[in-house]
């Protein structure tokens, strides 16, 4: 079958998709977007987390056909998504999370230099993960970033327990989570600093 969807602001099409193929498989193997990870393919680890029409989902549990005509944001598009959202906030367009989502749907991801990671604009939560040492092997990172970014979108000043609850579907085997807590706290703190200055 053929599946049409919008990924990171760009219309995408996949042909010859099998009935049983997941959104994760189509993103990774048919659309050249392997950023979303495949640690369990059973909905247990969250490393495949993407936003589907704004809602974080385990893309391994979404049949590719279910994503027909819908909007997907993956880790590859997170920086641009966050930039659009921040831009909207600054210009006062944004009235709430939904408004920013509308705006996010209108953008297209720009090209990036991926060789060394230099000169790439990052979402605040991405920068915070690097700065706080929340990345070790990094396999959990894409899913955690999408989930953490979504939480901060509607809960900009989370308590520790809020963070733990929001990220409880994302396994990390390397860090023991403490630095991930630090990263989300850091992203939240930077955001509130930015908001007051």
């Amino acid at each position, binding site marked *: 079958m053929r599946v049409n969807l919008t990924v990171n602001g760009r219309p995408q099409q996949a042909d010859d998709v*099998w009935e*049983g193929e997941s959104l994760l498989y189509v993103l990774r*193997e048919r659309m*050249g*977007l*392997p*950023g*979303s*990870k*495949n*640690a*369990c*393919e*059973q909905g*247990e*680890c969250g*490393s495949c987390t993407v936003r589907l029409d704004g809602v974080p989902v385990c893309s391994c549990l979404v049949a590719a056909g279910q994503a027909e005509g819908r909007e997907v944001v*993956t*880790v*590859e598009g*997170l*920086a641009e998504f966050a930039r659009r959202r921040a831009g909207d906030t600054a210009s006062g367009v944004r009235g709430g999370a939904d408004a920013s989502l509308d705006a996010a749907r209108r953008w297209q991801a720009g090209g*990036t230099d*991926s*060789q*060394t*990671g*230099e000169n790439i604009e*990052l979402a605040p939560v*991405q*920068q915070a*993960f*690097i*700065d706080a*040492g929340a*990345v*070790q*092997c*990094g*396999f959990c*990172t894409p899913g955690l*970033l999408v989930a953490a970014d979504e939480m901060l979108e509607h809960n900009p000043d989370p308590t520790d327990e809020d*963070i*733990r*609850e929001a*990220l*409880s*579907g*994302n*396994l*990390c*085997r*390397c*860090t*023991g*989570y*403490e*630095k*991930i*807590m630090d990263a989300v706290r850091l992203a939240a703190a930077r955001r509130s600093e930015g908001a007051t200055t």
Partner: protein
Amino acid sequence: MTAIGAPTGLTQGSRTKGGIGESTLRPDGVLKVTGEFAYASDMWHEDMLWGQILRSTVAHAEIVSIDTGEALATPGVYAVMTYDDLPTDVRHYGLEIRDTPVLAHGRVRHHGEPVAIVAADHPETARRAAARIKVEYRELPLVTDEATATAPDAVLVHENRSDHHSGHVPHPNIVHRQPIVRGDADAAAGRADVIVEGDYYFGMQDQAFLGPESGLAVPGEDGGVDLYIATQWLHSDLRQIAPVLGLPEDKVRMTLSGVGGAFGGREDLSMQIHACLLALRTGKPVKIVYNRFESFFGHVHRHPARLHYEHGATRDGRLTHVRCRIVLDGGAYASASPAVVGNAASLSVGPYVCEDVDIEALALYSNNPPCGAMRGFGAVQACFAYEAQMDKVAAELGLDPVEFRRINAMEQGTLMPTGQPVDSPAPVAELLRRVKAMPMPPERQWESSEGADVRQLPGGLSNTTHGEGVVRGVGYAVGIKNVGFSEGFDDYSTARVRLEAVGGRPVVTVHTAMAEVGQGGVTVHAQIARTELGVAEVTIRPADTRVGSAGSTSASRQTYVTGGAIKNACELVRERVLETGRRKLGSHHPAWATAELLLEGGKVVTDGGEVLADLVDVLEDEVVEVEEEWRHRPTEPFDPRTGQGDGHVQYSFAAHRAVVEVDTELGLVKVIELACAQDVGKALNPLSVIGQIQGGTVQGLGIAVMEEIVVDPVTAKVRNPSFTDYLLPTILDTPALPVDVLELADDHAPYGLRGVGEAPTLSSTPAVLAAIRDATGLALDRTPVRPEHLTGTA
């Protein structure tokens, strides 16, 4: 057409000095947060096929027949291979003992053993074709524990053994046995005022790295193969792969692909040979990626263990003797079992002074899943038991458990049970003191103005209690782990370091075969190069087999050994550069001849800080490059009868304090805080060091309260091969993890550093167990602890 996802170099400049001791950030961090970092499972190649492995559905059986006809006839299938299709006479592999068949030959010895492999143009086609292979099994009696392994009529898991342990083991179903006898335990027992015995069980733990086993094999025009792979040690893989393929080692070109964690589980081969075989057979690139189910069968696990201990002490709290017997279940193939036995035996007493010991550790061959390396490597199981014993003895003597440990704590100069002196700082008492001195988390922390926050209570969001039936407990533990490969192993690493001027700037390139598995080796390597060569911009080349072996990313050894190799190569580069400088510019300034010269900030400076020249002016278009092997001081094997010998390179120590709350009615445990103090010698990158300590701590928490591979005792089949049934700690299960880092230099090691990664995995588990015992008053002699063990319904 090249493989997409092949690694590129990681270049990182630095505005600060960026040398050792600073928390510089990972050079691969940006790639990892943008999703651009290519893990082995992300590799892609035009025209690529997908490989699939058919695994045994029974634990021990004769293979009566294999029919691949239907699978081969499936449209989209390019190849199906069994044992009979292997290209050479070398059909087994193994880390130390080559006892593992590439594909089963007439017999399977454990549930999930590879029997046949398939290559097809879609992963689902490959899976379905594999399912169409008909294998007829005739089941054989099972070896599942010590009793069935050593019974007079026991089936031999491996017949006609001729490995270097087979001569000294008491039974062919014992892989290796290491006794350690020192002093006179019988006589010492006579002086004891109290004697405490205990039997303990340690469950089988899975490494559960998140990035599944995967790799891409691309056939070369020269008949060789390029393999992009997630592993812990490229050259060890290479030595095992090449002979099976019938290729010289230089025709198997291996490149490390992105590795999603390892923890010991990638020390053994998984799909490496299978992907290469299919690629060479079909002439097409072949990718294999395990799913989580297969991953549970695709790598070795931490040995489950039965441990018997006897400790004696005098009234004033001094240990008189320790006797112990540790039986590890190695499963169907040897893997790292012999070395795990050596560790379990030599570290079985823990970080304590005890002159009179009688120790025995052994690993069984059985039809259970194969076990091998996992973070902590034999020392973890022992620590769980000896720390339980230390608490019991303290209770018997009426002493505070921390005080009892302090009285017996080893220090620099103490002799190990092996007779080896501990010849660098061993701050065991100090670590306990520090962890005890940390502030306690507040009582009833779940209470808030809006009532109980159930997320902070046992049971969490299941909302099982608002504080009723909840009791708090506190427990302590400390452990000792060896660093580096032991028992006479030639544990070296190789580094190639190049210094040149590029575009008017000095640039360093570091090339090693070190497997970056997440630990942050790449970060530290750049820091070492900056410190030694005074150059900000460092490129870390992808790890591959075009440079000499770096040894394994395990045993907490890479910063020590490959870090040492890079330091050494940098020193040689510096000498050459200074020689060049003296030759070219020596006449300009007398200090070239007289002063101690350093490289700093891209310049040659005197130890007094005077600048003599820019590095780029010294180098001009000269490239200075050095490749050198580097070794730590040698170790020696343990005597096979007495266990005596200077077997270890270095020891590392960590202590934990656990605070838990237990809902005694439901048997639910919430760990409130898990504090750690560890001596790291020198923290080359404090941020990474703390990350390692916290990560290791939580893996220890996992084995304390949830993680266990359950093997059916009747069928020897794995019952819970999924993240639904094998539970890993989530962020909700994980408490605050305060860390206190001590830096007492080990003068034998580069920069005084001490391997960090494993020690925190040891003491975490017994500390949590001690805290649960403290809360509940229960004896708890097994780990993990499940609700039924706390409610008496087990």
